[in-house]
């Protein structure tokens, strides 16, 4: 007989593959990434104009920022804010929907204990994010190759270690946001409130605290430096190669690489433990 964790992971992946919302989230993440990392800079380059997010960069710098050697930065550059918010939505949907549909009782009356079910769900979430990230890297590679061929530019890829590091950092960032969403889904037993709170946090609170700490209230810096978005942005900052173009929103040098890694890992563990505590202790009524 197979392991309950493996069975739960397989069941979760089966659900996820057929869930339209999961594909919509992946499509939105991929399209936004392509637009901001490739389409906008390339169109600015071809029109010979700057402005907006490309302000200050020369046309040559804009073109250079879309070429294959920038694949890592271009793929995970937006993970601190928009892709992070989408990952949080995925986690909240995946875990909170079970309460909204009442299917949590269906899951928990089959075979696996509560701990195994949660572990299986988290494993499926980690696998889904790994696959989604692979798709985003693939689309970025295709797009940048297309631009390089169209503009007769050399095709130079990042080294294997840089690719692996970027992929790993991107996976950790998205997984952290997704598990935070999952924990909110389990703790609040639903979807709407976790998504609402999570998105307000990612897009509102983090920006507010960061802006206040930077401009008016230095005392907020220690608080800013433990925020998940700031640490995600700091991790992304370490993989940027070309600094001639304005980085994506949320990318910052507020904390160092090691601390950012540790902080995100702590969020991951704390969110997972909180979800496990809630799932194991509370009655399913």
């Amino acid at each position, binding site marked *: 007989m197979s392991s309950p964790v493996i*069975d*739960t992971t397989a069941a979760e992946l089966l659900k996820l593959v*057929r*869930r339209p919302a999961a594909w919509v989230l992946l499509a939105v993440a991929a399209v936004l990434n392509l637009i901001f990392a490739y389409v906008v800079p390339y169109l600015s380059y071809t029109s010979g104009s700057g402005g907006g997010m490309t302000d200050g960069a020369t046309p040559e710098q804009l073109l250079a920022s879309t070429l294959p050697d920038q694949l890592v930065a271009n793929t995970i550059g937006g993970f601190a804010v928009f892709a992070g918010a989408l990952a949080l939505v995925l986690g909240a949907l995946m875990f909170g929907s079970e309460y909204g*549909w009442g*299917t949590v*009782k269906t899951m*928990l009356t089959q075979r*696996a204990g509560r701990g195994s079910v949660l572990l299986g769900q988290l494993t499926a979430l980690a696998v889904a994010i790994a696959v989604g990230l692979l798709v985003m890297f693939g689309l970025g590679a295709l797009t940048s190759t297309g631009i390089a061929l169209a503009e007769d530019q050399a095709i130079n890829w990042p080294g294997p270690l840089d690719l692996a590091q970027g992929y790993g950092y991107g996976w950790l960032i998205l997984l952290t946001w997704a598990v935070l969403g999952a924990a909110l889904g389990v703790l609040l037993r639903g979807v709407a409130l976790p998504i609402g709170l999570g998105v307000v946090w990612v897009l509102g609170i983090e920006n507010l605290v960061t802006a206040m700490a930077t401009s008016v209230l230095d005392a907020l810096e220690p608080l800013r430096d433990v925020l998940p978005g700031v640490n995600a942005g700091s991790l992304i900052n370490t993989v940027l190669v070309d600094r001639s173009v304005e980085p994506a929103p949320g990318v910052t040098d507020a904390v160092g690489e090691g601390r950012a890694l540790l902080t995100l890992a702590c969020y991951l563990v704390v969110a997972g433990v909180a979800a496990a505590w809630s799932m194991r202790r509370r*009655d399913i009524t």
Partner: protein
Amino acid sequence: MKIAEPVVEVRELTKRYSDHITAVDRINLTVRRGEVFGFLGPNGAGKTTTLRMLLGLIAPTSGDVGVLGQRPGTPAALARVGALIEGPAFYPYLSGRHNLRVVARYGGVPSARIDERVGAVLRTVDLADRADDKFATYSLGMKQRLGVAAALLKDPELIVLDEPTNGLDPAGMRDMRRLIRELGTEGRTVLLSSHLLGEVQQICDRVAVINHGQIVTEGTVDELRGDAELVVVATPSDVARDRLEAMPEVENVHPTEGRLHVRVDALHTALVNRTLVEAGIAVTELRRAERELEDVFFEITQSPELNHV
């Protein structure tokens, strides 16, 4: 006769939500292998809370529960139990077939057997024709049948069905009754919770009645229904009542709506008739009438002595 082993054993089981709310109050219950056991009670009596405790969804405040010799909610117990609790809950964006595949995965059905088991249970509940339609498009009756199909996937020894006929039309209810009866004859144990007393009377071997969180009676359906009554319509009615009450063979006379309900052994029916006629009383109707489980249920659940309200 050899007594079958207990499949569900509940001792002094209690669930309190606060000092003021006791959903289940020190109940004792034994369900034996191979029987179809009815768990009756009005809405809010504590049926679903009890069943959820048997499945590990709710932690008891106190008391002991054994399910197939295991603690409730443990993988060892769940692997041998199929359940439909308080309505079917599935993924609306998946078809019936894919929902069952997902449940089979959760249930640890070996990969090689999943399609075979899913096909078999879909045929059992007569849902094969609509198996590839999305769950969201199903009628309430179809959803209920899918819920029963999911409960059967693991080929369980114990099946717990909470109000399985909710939302079914008369034909669907008849089919469901037939299905539950078949499950009972296949050697499985069925624990059926319902407030539809007619269906319980037709299906169950034994029943327990719960009200205000307490078991108020337990026994076979026949034990609960008791002996059949004699219904007498006679004129003058008050004289007939006096004569019947004077008979040593008669246990009890209860007048309702112009009729006298007489508790007396069936062997004495002719004697009752003769006694009344010889007393000059005109007997216009005399027949035996069995009490329905519904009558017993209302007597029990509405009796102040039997309910600690």
